């Protein structure tokens, strides 16, 4: 994976010094809160309900065990012994002191990490497929493009005061695990007519109060033209995106107002000029970055290649294998998902001990590498098949072997009103109650793939628009109320869920979800997943069961 050189290191070190200076000026009164606020946000520092919150970037979701131990140490030293993995491959700490924030950034810089541009009206932490580099069918490792974008977007002088935040995601597989069509820019790496990798560029997707699935704006952009095209897109947005209304300031509103064709034409005109202005990356630099993502040295021992692996007579292990392991591009290896969704737990939270444990297991079983998913789970990307049972046994001891990846209890939830200053309702307790309701693992496995996503307000950090079942918390005359949406998807078949009907109380929404699941089980055809069934029958049968007068 990518290693900082002296320049990268100097950039993050300098940033720490700059932020230390800014914090000192704020505490002394030289900087007002109005002027300091965008500066602290550029370093991932929010003021939330209980304290400051620090959001740390995990670029394209890749972490070393050493970096994970630093994240664990920060939780212990500066916070309350835990962190929260978010829906954008970041980790958040909830109890941060402003005066200590520069020290945390320094600790992060020492392991080649940062909180740069994890908030504010800038190009945010770039995300990628969490199976990057190991997915069987990917065109090429999307982290190469993602790292190029990370560097290009870091302290971009033209695009650091955009109309609104700007999120970029990259995928390179026909299966989209990065929700690229819900990003401001989504890049899908595809093959051009000659079979060489090229970029399909989707622009103007997003959730929030006006959800859009991004239209394709540029088909098969040559790889060498990436940065000039991004510069052109961002410039059109920076100049013409709305600045008069925060709710209409995202690029999706501009794309929608102009229409995708006209927006594409404006970007194209701008790009024909930017591409002559020496903005594209020098080829030797692309090659340098690419080299960091060469596959590690995999073993080819017979035990790993054998079809029969130890432990498969244990049904609990088999259940875990079926949901929490995926095919790896190297023979004899598997990709392992570590669920951060224990029954009744807080989705995405991990304690210092758990983070350290995962770091140790990564060293023993996964070449020291960890991934963070936008679904708030962790991945060990390189596990030898012969060692899967040993790993599972250790995960079980640590309480990290829940066999629910992709199932009804693998719920995405934003922090909600328990932590967030913007929220209208709590999200986490709803996730916990649903999880408890479906605690029975056999039942979960028989229901099959089902993605529930919960947001505590219209900003949709919990991706409720993209949930097979989406839940949106609202404040109705001082009471928490929950709307249910059906039929959303954040995958390659991206779609926006539609509201089912009147909302439910906190208790009622758990019953309602169970009714929806039971309805699906009754009406599904053999082998038909939840989302396919909803698309086949529509909302009608679910509405009937939910709102039937008794």
């Amino acid at each position, binding site marked *: 994976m990518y290693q900082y050189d002296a320049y990268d290191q100097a950039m993050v070190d300098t940033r720490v010094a700059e932020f230390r200076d800014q914090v000192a000026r*704020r*505490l*002394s*009164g030289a900087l007002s*809160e109005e002027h300091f606020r965008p500066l602290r946000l550029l370093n991932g520092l929010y*003021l*939330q*309900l*209980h*304290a*400051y919150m620090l959001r740390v970037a995990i670029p394209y979701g890749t972490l070393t065990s050493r970096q994970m131990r630093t994240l664990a140490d920060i939780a212990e030293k500066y916070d*309350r012994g835990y962190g929260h993995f978010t829906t954008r491959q970041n980790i958040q700490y*909830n109890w*941060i*002191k*402003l*005066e200590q924030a520069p020290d945390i950034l320094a600790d992060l810089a020492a392991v080649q990490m940062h909180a740069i541009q994890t908030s504010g009206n800038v190009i945010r932490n770039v995300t990628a497929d969490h199976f990057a580099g190991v997915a069987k069918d990917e065109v090429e490792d999307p982290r190469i493009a993602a790292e190029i974008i990370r560097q290009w977007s870091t302290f971009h002088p033209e695009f650091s005061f955009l109309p609104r935040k700007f999120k970029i995601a990259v995928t390179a597989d026909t299966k989209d695990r990065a929700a690229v069509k819900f990003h401001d820019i989504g890049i899908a790496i595809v093959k051009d007519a000659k079979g060489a990798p090229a970029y399909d560029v989707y622009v103007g997707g997003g959730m929030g109060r006006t959800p859009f699935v991004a239209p394709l704006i540029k088909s098969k952009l040559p790889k060498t033209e990436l940065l000039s095209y991004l510069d052109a897109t961002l410039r059109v947005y920076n100049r013409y995106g709305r600045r008069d209304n925060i709710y209409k300031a995202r690029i999706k509103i501009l794309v929608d107002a102009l229409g995708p064709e006209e927006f594409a034409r404006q970007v194209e005109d701008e790009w024909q000029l930017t591409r002559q202005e020496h903005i594209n990356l020098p080829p030797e630099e692309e090659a340098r970055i690419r080299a960091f993502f060469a596959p590690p040295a995999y073993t080819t021992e017979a035990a790993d290649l054998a079809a029969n692996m130890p432990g498969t007579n244990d049904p609990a292990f088999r259940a875990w294998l079926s949901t929490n392991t995926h095919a790896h591009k190297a023979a004899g290896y598997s990709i392992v998902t570590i669920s951060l969704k224990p029954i009744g737990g*807080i989705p995405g939270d991990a304690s210092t001990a758990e983070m350290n444990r995962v770091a140790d297991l990564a060293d023993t079983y996964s070449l020291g590498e960890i991934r963070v998913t936008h679904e708030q789970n962790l991945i060990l990307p390189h596990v030898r098949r012969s060692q899967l049972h040993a790993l599972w046994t250790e995960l079980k001891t640590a309480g990290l072997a829940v066999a629910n990846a992709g199932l009804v209890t693998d719920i995405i939830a934003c922090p909600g*009103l*328990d*932590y967030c200053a913007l*929220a209208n309702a*709590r999200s*986490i*307790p709803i996730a*916990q109650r649903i999880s408890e309701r479906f605690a029975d693992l056999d039942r979960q496995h028989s229901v099959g793939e089902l993605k529930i996503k919960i947001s505590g307000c219209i900003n949709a950090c919990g991706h409720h628009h993209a949930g097979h079942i989406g839940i949106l918390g609202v404040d109705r005359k*001082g009471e*928490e109320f929950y709307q249910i949406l059906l039929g959303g998807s954040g995958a390659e078949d991206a779609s926006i869920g539609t509201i089912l009907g009147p909302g439910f109380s906190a208790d009622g929404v758990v019953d309602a979800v169970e009714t929806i699941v039971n309805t699906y089980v009754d009406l599904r055809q053999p082998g038909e997943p939840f989302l396919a069934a909803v698309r086949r029958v529509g909302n009608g049968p679910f509405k009937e069961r939910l709102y039937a007068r008794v």
Partner: protein
Amino acid sequence: MSKEFAKIITANRLQDGAVVFLTSEGAWAESTQAAAVARTPDDETRLLTLAAASVKACRVVDPNAIDVSALNTREPARLRERIRQVGPTVRPDLARAI
């Protein structure tokens, strides 16, 4: 909930972000116990003026007047403010004393 006028002033402390409440002397306490209670809109204005001075002096940010129960002024009316007062409902182990 009584409709009688009762408000206290809350903010976050600048240095560490902690939730604090304005006392009648213009100090900031971590508990609602010592919070000054405005019983009239004039009281509220006076307390918010005190709070504004604290903002200028770089002691707190985002001061706000919040409704509390007239009978028990240590009980904020809105769920959001009760969560700010006590801590996340999903982590009772981290609960603050009110």
